[in-house]
């Protein structure tokens, strides 16, 4: 199995996230950046499939130079090699442009399986799996809470999470699979893994080398524009009451004054 897994570097969940004041893109400079937590589940699933069926796992990231830290993390978890698409021209790309760029890179790797996570904690688009399927012309197996691959038959089956249960979805390989975080428990990189990661092959590509035209990516040609950004007005500080035996009644009173009951 030739498996590609996409990972994204994002501002740390606990960091106070901001937009850059000059161009209103996500400020990735003034905060700590980490691998998108959800992507750990994608990497884990890729590794499990490789361990069960053999093959190779290639990490693909698009992002600034320092996103290489996130690539290292995926390699230290056990991925075999990585491709890093990085170029100033990519700055400010929206989800549609990012999918175009990632698809271009992924197509050259001729994978049997492309694995993404469902959502990145910065953009929370939740559409990259669907968009990669669209761009690559492959089956879309997103929102997977369980994945079963049958390399001999050349098929893959998932449980697609739904509101009231799940749908069982089948496709032929190659396919794009998007995993939800319920699917597994990601491993921690071992010391050996961390050491090994430093020697694993990493290919760095600029826009031109990836066969992309700088005019189709980046802020200038993005399909949407942020006109204005402001911090949410702080919530009015509320009333905090200690229970004196009548706490339930107190809440009910509050709800009644708010006309909520």
């Amino acid at each position, binding site marked *: 199995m030739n498996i590609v897994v996409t990972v994204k570097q994002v501002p740390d*969940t606990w960091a*106070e*996230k*901001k*937009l850059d004041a000059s161009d*209103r893109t996500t400020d990735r400079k003034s905060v700590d950046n980490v691998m998108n937590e959800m992507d750990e589940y994608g990497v884990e699933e890729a590794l499990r499939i490789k361990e069960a069926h053999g093959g190779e796992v290639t990490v693909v990231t698009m992002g600034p130079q320092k996103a290489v830290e996130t690539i290292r993390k995926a390699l230290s978890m056990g991925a075999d090699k990585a491709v890093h698409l990085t170029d100033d021209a990519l700055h400010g790309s*929206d*989800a*549609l442009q990012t*999918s175009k760029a990632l698809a271009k890179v992924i197509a050259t790797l001729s994978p049997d399986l492309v694995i993404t996570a*469902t*959502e990145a904690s910065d953009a929370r*688009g*939740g*559409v990259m*799996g*669907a968009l990669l399927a*669209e*761009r690559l012309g*492959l*089956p*879309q*197996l*997103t*929102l997977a809470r369980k994945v079963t691959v049958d390399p001999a038959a050349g098929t893959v089956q998932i449980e697609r*999470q*739904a*509101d*009231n*249960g799940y*749908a*069982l*979805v*089948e496709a*032929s390989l190659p396919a794009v699979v998007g995993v939800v975080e319920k699917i597994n428990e990601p491993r921690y990189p071992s010391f050996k893994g961390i050491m090994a990661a430093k020697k694993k092959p990493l290919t760095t590509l600029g826009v031109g080398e990836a066969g992309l035209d700088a005019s189709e990516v980046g802020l200038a040609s993005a*399909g*949407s*524009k*942020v*006109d204005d*950004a*402001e*911090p*949410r007005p702080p*919530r009015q500080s*509320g*009333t*905090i*009451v*200690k*229970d004196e035996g009548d*706490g*339930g009644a107190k*809440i*009910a009173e*509050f*709800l*009644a004054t708010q006309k*909520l*009951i």
Partner: protein
Amino acid sequence: MAEVLVLVEHADGEPKKVTAELLTLARTLGEPSAVFLGGPGTYAKAKEYLAQYGAAKVYVGESDDLADYVVAPAAEVLAKLIASASPVAVLTAATPDARETAARAAAKSDSGFLWDAVGLTPELVATQGIFGGSTIVQSHVTKGIPVIAVRPNSTAAEAAPGTPTEEQLTIEVSDVAKTAKIVDRVVEAKSGRPDLTEAQIVVSGGRGLGAGENFALVEKLADSLGAAVGASRAATDAGWYPHQNQVGQTGKTVSPQLYVAVGISGAIQHRAGMQTSKTIVAINKDPEAPIFELADFGLVGDLFQVVPQLTDEVEKRK
């Protein structure tokens, strides 16, 4: 008047409340055309509802292909409609299936795509809460026909009864869109309670409940309020409550009139899914719990005492 396409959100033909919200919002932008895509014979269940909420026109697409494959066929049909109708905008719900459909349709029509809009001006400037709702941005699409996925509960639905014209769509789906086949649908939970993302009131339970069976307390309170039941990830991970009910960054995003957090600490990932709720009530025995920073009304106390009393009080006031 300018045409606005509204992708109907439905379950087997039964329209979801967000459809009425989208039609109401679309009426402020132009003339709404509902786009109904579903399996054969499902439209009959939605017809009345779409007329009630002011659809001027309904494009009806019914086909096994739309029901039997994941997202791609619907995206293809929607993209064709965008090309032929050339609307001023396309609105969908920001729910998983609809946002994937919207994204793929936008990619096909080389249009800009915005998600999680909570407001939209007649000039098509969208308001979105980003970074878990901590920053509010105004943005607009700069390319093609704006495709905008709107959060449920962001507009109050208003009826505007009329008699829409109907246009039957001929559904011809390409082979490449028919590759992810749905072979079975398994229903795991059907509570009879409102949908989590659509509910006016949500009562959520967390690790503070201590055991799965104690979720009965949360359910009783929810039923007295006519609310949906949510859960923190600690509770779903422990198997106390179904995963579909998880609220937060990796669960559902909810924005109800009232959110009641029971035994939930208010971790940043949980907040990301509920902090835009209009009114927040928290019950927690730890006065330092971060959930109190968000609460309009916070009660420091033992949930096992407070929740049953609250349920009784709500019942009494009915």
